[in-house]
């Protein structure tokens, strides 16, 4: 069947909407970038130097194991971009504890988890990973 005028208009309308997604997505996010900026004081984050060890796919979104390691870090913060609130946990390491920790977290749906490390020299490093969950850990 040939597309009707209505089909064509609908298709072009959704194409226009798709082009706007970057801005729309940023607004629709849970404020994760703002939360990261609050942690870093707005400082630039470099990639590398942070290991975020997490499963790419996990059945139970209610208890996803996450391990973070950042040699030379004094603090490591975890964030998410798909739960109602972007914060997860902040670890502060004293001199007896190497900068490494494992925790189990809730993911309401498939999304990206961020690990941001504050290094001893005051700079920040970041790693992120997409995690697909089969059953969301509902809020």
């Amino acid at each position, binding site marked *: 069947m040939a597309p009707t005028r209505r089909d064509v208009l609908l298709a072009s309308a959704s194409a226009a909407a798709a082009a706007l997604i970057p801005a729309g997505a940023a607004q629709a996010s849970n404020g994760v970038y703002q939360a990261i900026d609050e942690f870093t004081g707005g400082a630039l984050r470099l990639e590398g130097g942070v290991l975020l060890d997490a499963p790419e796919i996990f059945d139970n979104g209610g208890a996803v194991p996450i391990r973070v390691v950042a040699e030379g870090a004094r603090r490591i913060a975890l964030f998410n971009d798909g739960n109602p609130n972007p914060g997860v946990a902040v670890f502060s390491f004293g001199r007896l504890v190497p900068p490494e*920790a494992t925790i189990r977290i809730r993911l309401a749906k498939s999304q990206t988890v961020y690990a941001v490390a504050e290094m001893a020299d005051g700079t920040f490093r970041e790693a992120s990973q997409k995690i697909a969950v089969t059953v969301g850990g509902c*809020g």
Partner: protein
Amino acid sequence: MAEPTPRVKLPRSIEAGVPFTVKTRITHPMHTGERHDSEGALVPRQIINRFVVSYGGEVAISVDLEPAVSADPYIQFQLAVPESGQLEFQWVDDDGSVYSLSKRVEVD
């Protein structure tokens, strides 16, 4: 809510200055404040919001927790101690309760 029960697991043998694994867990529902009960009423937020471990009076690690941490919060880390001493664990609840556990560490 049942009284939260903290648990900590240390290795049997610990050497001075050598990092060992500390596994911690406390039973707690970690109510996010987003969920509704069977009557449709919002269950108010109540979580463990802070976890602190001290050794010989010095803070070894502290963790600020958000509702995104799983129920029965599980946290694992490495610790290296210079000598035998007392390891103190504290979990702070939104309602102000503090749950504590103390473990003696004897280095070989």
